[in-house]
């Protein structure tokens, strides 16, 4: 009942929602045994910055581009090659288009 099938895969969202609902009730109850108090508006609620004074949120903003640092550094050679291709010159892009189209014609022509 209500099982979705894609031909190769299947899942029942209703079942999962029921499981999540029951687990939520149980774990929310267990979580309720924990202490829920803390000292508001004290040093306790400042972000931990290894003892440094906390600046305003704007000043300690971490750029989203940092996310890709691991990729751009470890795959530096690939990115360098790709950057070289992206010259910003339209005629270069048209040339790429023509070359790839010619290769595709050859591939499909031979096949």
């Amino acid at each position, binding site marked *: *009942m209500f*099982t979705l099938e894609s031909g*190769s*895969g*299947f*899942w*029942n969202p209703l*079942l*999962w929602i*029921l*499981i*999540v609902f*029951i*687990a*939520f009730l*149980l*774990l*929310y109850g267990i*979580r309720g*045994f*924990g*202490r*829920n*108090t*803390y*000292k508001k508006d004290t040093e*306790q*609620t*400042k*972000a*931990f*910055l*290894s003892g440094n004074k906390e600046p305003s*949120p704007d000043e*300690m903003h*971490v750029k*989203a581009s*940092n*996310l*890709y*640092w*691991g*990729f751009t*550094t*470890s*795959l530096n050679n690939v990115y360098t090659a790709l950057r070289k291709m992206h010259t910003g010159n339209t005629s270069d892009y048209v040339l790429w288009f023509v070359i790839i189209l010619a290769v595709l014609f050859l591939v499909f022509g031979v096949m």
Partner: protein
Amino acid sequence: MDILELSELSVRIILGTLGLTAFGIIFGLFYKGIDRKLSARMQGRIGPPLRQPFRDVAKLFAKENIVPDHAIPWIFNLIPLVGLIAAISILLYLPIGGFPALFSWGGDLIVILYLLLIPSLSLVIGGFSSGSPYAIIGAQREMATIIAYEFPLAIIIITIAWKFLQKGATNVFSLATITATPVWNQVTGPLGIIGFAILLLVLLLVTPAELSKIPFDASEAETEIAGGLLVEYSGRNLAMFYLMDGVKTVVLASLVVTLFFPYNLSPLLHLASYPGMALDILFYLFKVFLIILFSVTLIRVAIARLKIDQIVYTYWIPLTLASLVGLILVMWDSVVMNLFSSA
């Protein structure tokens, strides 16, 4: 579906969820205790007692549940619970203790892969909602790690499914299909065995990254970013993440057992009824222990933490290439054997 079947299903869902929640939490913490004890012994320390993780949770429940000034309180409080619930929900789709999965008809391997993402994403969202630069850096690193390890993991799953498809199985992503005829029984020659052995090794190396364990714990990195995405968490919220880590360890080890070692001892020893069931449960717990011993304990004791670019490189270049080699060997397995048999 009549009313009797519906009520039976309801009871199964309720008791199954309650039972597997208890199982996941208790054994998650128990295996955490074993891991800490063994790693301490390997480092020449005495280590904490096995019940230490239980005490840690009890202590966290007694601690203040601090919400930082710049955090988004409702996300910050809710997301640890979401991660734990998602980790527990996976247990209901996996064969546990040598028994078939409770709801194998409710979801396949692809669903499990998606559900496995939720605990990791909950860590990321929790980190972003903390309003701390350390937590944001940790969350970004966790996202990069997720993107990195999903690639070889997807190749492993596709290879297993492809092999079952080639053998004429229907529902190739179904865990019932995979456990009924284990992958080692699907191969026809040594190439297939080597291919699946490589894929098993890659999966065992994906496991520590899924669990954010050393050497793939750049997202937490206590000595560098002071706990990263967990830096602002305390009290019962941190306890939820702590429990989530334990449950996810059991989930991942059970997934490896299901995909590669779904064997039971009872048919071999001709045991039936309760003795057979007890033996199968013990054997399953032992298999889970061995997976955790290799993927978590041995690796984190032996290797130092990698930088995030090294993590990405490890998963995208050597391990992706290794899993592709495994895929090709599995594909060539029957072709080469057919050539030999026809010659």
